[in-house]
């Protein structure tokens, strides 16, 4: 087992635990009696009963609740800052709709010197949102990505390489076409954005993962940036009634031109649908399905040579389709020192995967989000 992997995984899980710990601490703190009322009853309140909350807590309670990682808009004048940690563990090689072994990869592709057996990706995403009006919400997102990939050689030895860097900056506007955020109910939101090539496409690591070897450009999936501008059109539907909230969203990434390494990543088509149920004022579990279709690389980076040594460096072996089932919950802190903070934790795995491989399939993913609106 590779040490760096252990470290990454442990770090990710530790972060999730710290967040959970903070959350439970703040819940405990908030259960102290306040204003002479029996606050111990608060967590057991019936849906719709806010009488256990103190005046101060009601004063700071959001009317519109954000429920699910993904789409939401804000009421006029509201700012939001957020942080999301995303972890993806990719293990096992797949080609088409089924798993294949590294031996099969080597047998079918005489030109490959290496097969990838595992990839981990950690992404730290920061976002800022602001609503100049009830209809329009603006958003900017930038993330920092860390990736590591385990390679298997034909001689059956392994090594790993690592890459990290900031991702492409995304700026987006969300305009409510139908419905009203203050009233809730059904809403249709038109999304339009732009992705800027702020991320690097020239991340390198030592050949064979050996510090004595020269640096070598890492493959397409290991580059944090795309190197090109992209249009981000989309459409979001949001609905809620009583304790239920649901929605669906599609966002497309239409990449433009060619980057400085003479290629353009494939377009991405993302679709997501979810349903959440508010058990009480601060806790809403949800289920989300997320589908993604992405294309092959157009052009080719000459750095990988005319006959690339791995599938990950082949422009024609990048495309895929995947549907993830994700389960999560949203926690809003209505009182105590953490009041007004919102935490979302979701984890999931693919229920459908079809890759133009050989490519690594997804094992599981976890997302931990924090937002604060003011």
């Amino acid at each position, binding site marked *: 087992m590779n040490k760096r992997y252990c470290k990454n995984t442990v770090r990710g899980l530790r972060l999730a635990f710290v967040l959970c710990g903070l959350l439970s601490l703040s819940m405990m703190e908030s259960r102290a009696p306040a204003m002479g009322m029996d606050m111990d009853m608060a967590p057991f309140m019936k849906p719709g009963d806010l009488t256990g909350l103190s005046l101060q807590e009601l004063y700071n309670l959001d009317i519109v609740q954000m429920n699910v990682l993904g789409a939401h808009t804000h009421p006029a004048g509201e700012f939001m800052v957020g942080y999301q940690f995303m972890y993806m563990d990719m293990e096992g090689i797949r080609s088409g709709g089924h798993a294949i072994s590294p031996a099969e990869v080597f047998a079918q592709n005489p030109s490959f010197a290496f097969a990838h057996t595992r990839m981990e990706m950690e992404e730290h995403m920061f976002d800022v949102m602001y609503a100049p009006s009830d209809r329009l919400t603006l958003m900017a997102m930038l993330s920092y990505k860390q990736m590591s990939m385990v390679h298997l050689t034909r001689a059956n030895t392994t090594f790993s390489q690592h890459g990290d860097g900031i991702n492409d900056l995304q700026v987006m506007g969300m305009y409510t076409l139908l419905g009203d955020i*203050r009233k809730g109910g059904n809403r249709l939101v038109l999304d339009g954005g732009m992705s800027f090539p702020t991320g690097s496409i020239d991340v390198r690591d030592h050949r064979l993962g050996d510090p004595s070897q020269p640096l070598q450009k890492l493959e397409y999936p290991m580059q944090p940036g795309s190197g090109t501008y992209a249009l981000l059109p989309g459409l979001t539907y949001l609905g809620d009634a009583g304790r239920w909230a649901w929605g669906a969203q599609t966002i497309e990434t239409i990449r433009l031109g060619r980057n400085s390494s003479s290629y353009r990543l494939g377009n991405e088509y993302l679709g997501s649908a979810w349903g959440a149920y508010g058990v009480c004022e601060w806790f809403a579990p949800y289920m989300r399905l997320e589908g993604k279709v992405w294309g092959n690389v157009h052009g080719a980076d000459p750095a990988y040579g005319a006959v690339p040594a791995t599938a990950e460096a082949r422009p024609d072996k990048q495309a895929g389709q995947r549907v993830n089932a994700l389960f999560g919950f949203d926690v809003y802190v209505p009182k105590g020192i953490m009041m007004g903070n919102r935490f979302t934790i979701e984890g999931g795995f693919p229920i459908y995967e079809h890759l133009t491989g050989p490519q690594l399939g997804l*094992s599981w993913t976890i997302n931990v989000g924090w937002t604060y609106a003011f």
Partner: protein
Amino acid sequence: MRFKGILWLRAIAALLVLWAAPGPAAFAGTREYEIKAAYLYNFLNYIEWPEQSLPPAGSNITIGVVGENPFGPALDPLKGKQVKGRTLTVKEVSSAEDLKGCQILFISASEKERLPQLLESLKDAKIVTVSEIDGFAQRGGIINFIYERNRVRFEINQDAARSKGLTISSDLLKLARVVKS
């Protein structure tokens, strides 16, 4: 991963969880009115009525709603609670006599047109009038709910409360936007 090859098992697990999720609740109240209802309940604890104006201890204390009731079921959790040694009742009121039997009277936005007459008729009653009509507190009402950046907040006309002999606690005033007639 070990169970990588059995995607269909995961799909079934996902469907099972979906199926086990609770069915739609027969609950249709909106959160905004749940918050307002909880405020009304809290107001009872932060306002002092002259003792002789309250019904005798052990009887009822009443929150009335006049006009189209926007709360739906949001006021239901308040019913039967013990406040100031009395049992809280909530009712929709319309007759002048019923109106005067309330300690807190919520005046619906549907009564906007007849607000001057309504406030005039309650001038001497020891009733905390609450509404959500623009300028309600400036026009002589006592508490008016306002919308502020995704939160429900309120204005208080302290002079109007004082003239009725009602004492509003400083904790309540601290959160309010204090306005004058």
